C-alpha cells in the first residue's frame, strides 16, 4: 500500500469518529440550506436574493448587485416599483420597473415593465402573443440592495471570469 501519510488522521479514526466527520459536513451543508429555505418562507419568494445580470437598470442597479426580494400577498404591486419576474419558458429572471398596471376589482392585475436603461418597454421580451405580465410570473419585489463600488471595467472583468 502506498505511504499515504496525509490519510493518517482518517486511518486512526474509528467508525463513530468517521461518521461524526461525515455528519459535521452534512450539518454545515444543512445549515446553509435551512437558512436559505427559511428566507424563502419568511419573504414568500422562491428566490429571496438575486444578482443583477444586465445593465438594463442603470444608473439604479449595476451588474453584480445583490437584490433582496419579498413576495407577500398583502403587498400589492404598484407602478414605479422594481420587480423581478420570469417569462414563461425562460429560466433567467429579469429585473425591471413596472410601467403600467390594469387592476380588476378582485385584485387580479396585469402589468407592463421596462428597464430604466432600455429605450422600449419589455413587450419584445415577453412570450409570443403575450402583452402583459401577471402575478404568477413575479419572483418578488425589490426591497433592498447591496452594491460594490467598483469601476465598470472591474465589473466586466469579474463577470467574464464568473461566466467562464
Amino acid at each position, binding site marked *: *500500500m502506498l505511504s499515504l501519510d496525509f490519510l*493518517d488522521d482518517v486511518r486512526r479514526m474509528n*467508525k*463513530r469518529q468517521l*461518521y461524526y466527520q461525515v*455528519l459535521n459536513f452534512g450539518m454545515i451543508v444543512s445549515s446553509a*440550506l435551512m437558512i436559505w*429555505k427559511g428566507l424563502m418562507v419568511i419573504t414568500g419568494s422562491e428566490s429571496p436574493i438575486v444578482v443583477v445580470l444586465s445593465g438594463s437598470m442603470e444608473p439604479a442597479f449595476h451588474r453584480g448587485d445583490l437584490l433582496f426580494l419579498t413576495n407577500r400577498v398583502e403587498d400589492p404591486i404598484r407602478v414605479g416599483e422594481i420587480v423581478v419576474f420570469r417569462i414563461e419558458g425562460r429560466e433567467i429572471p429579469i429585473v425591471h420597473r413596472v410601467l403600467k398596471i390594469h387592476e380588476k376589482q378582485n385584485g387580479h392585475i396585469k402589468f407592463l415593465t421596462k428597464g430604466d436603461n432600455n429605450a422600449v418597454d419589455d413587450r419584445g421580451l415577453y412570450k409570443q402573443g403575450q402583452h402583459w405580465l401577471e402575478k404568477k410570473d413575479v419572483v418578488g419585489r425589490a426591497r433592498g440592495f447591496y452594491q460594490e463600488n467598483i469601476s465598470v471595467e472591474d465589473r466586466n472583468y469579474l463577470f467574464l471570469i464568473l461566466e467562464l
Partner: protein
Amino acid sequence: MAAAAAQGGRSGGGGGSGGAGGGPSGGTGSSRSGLLDKWKIDDKPVKIDKWDGSAVKNSLDDSAKKVLLEKYKYVENFGLIDGRLTICTISCFFAIVALIWDYMHPFPESKPVLALCVISYFVMMGILTIYTSYKEKSIFLVAHRKDPTGMDPDDIWQLSSSLKRFDDKYTLKLTFISGRTKQQREAEFTKSIAKFFDHSGTLVMDAYEPEISRLHDSLTTERKMK
C-alpha cells in the same frame, strides 16, 4: 513500559485498533481482511502539525484514551457520543426532508412543510448546543471498569481535557465515580504540550503515558485507603 507505548510490532496490536470502539469485533487481527489491517495504523507513532492546536489536543486526547483502554482494560461507554450523533442525524434528517419535499412540490405549496422543517432544524441546533455545553462538557471518554465479582455496579472513569486557543498548557482531568458508593473523585494535571511532543510533532508516549498512569493511580490508591 515499552509495551504500553504505541511502538513495536505487537501481534495482538490489531485488537487495540479502532480506538477500542470495535470491541465486539474481537481482538485478533485474523478476523479482518488483510487490507483492513493495513489500513489501521495504531502502531505508528502519532505525528501531527505541532502548531495546529486542535490536532495537538485531539492526539493527546486519543492517546490518553488508548492508555486507559489498553493498559487498564476498561470498556468504553459510547452513551454520550451516541447522544450527540443522534441529535445531529435527526437535524440532517429534517434538512433532507425539507429538500426533497420542496423538490417534489414547488415552492408556494411547500411553505408549511418548509417552515416546520426549518424551525425543527434550529430547535435541534439549540438542543445540540445545550447538550454539548452541559451534558458533554468536554468529556471525551467514559469508560467502565467491570467489577470482577460481578455483584456491584461498574466504576466509571471519565476523561475530559481543555487546551485554550494559542495556549500551550494542556489540562487533563480524570474523574472516578465509584459504582458502589456513587462518590466522585477527580485528579488533573496541567502541563505544557512541549513536554509531550518532540520538535517534529511526534507524540512521545514515553513522556505522556506515565502522567496518565500517575493520575490514574492517585485515584485508585485513595480508594484502597478508604
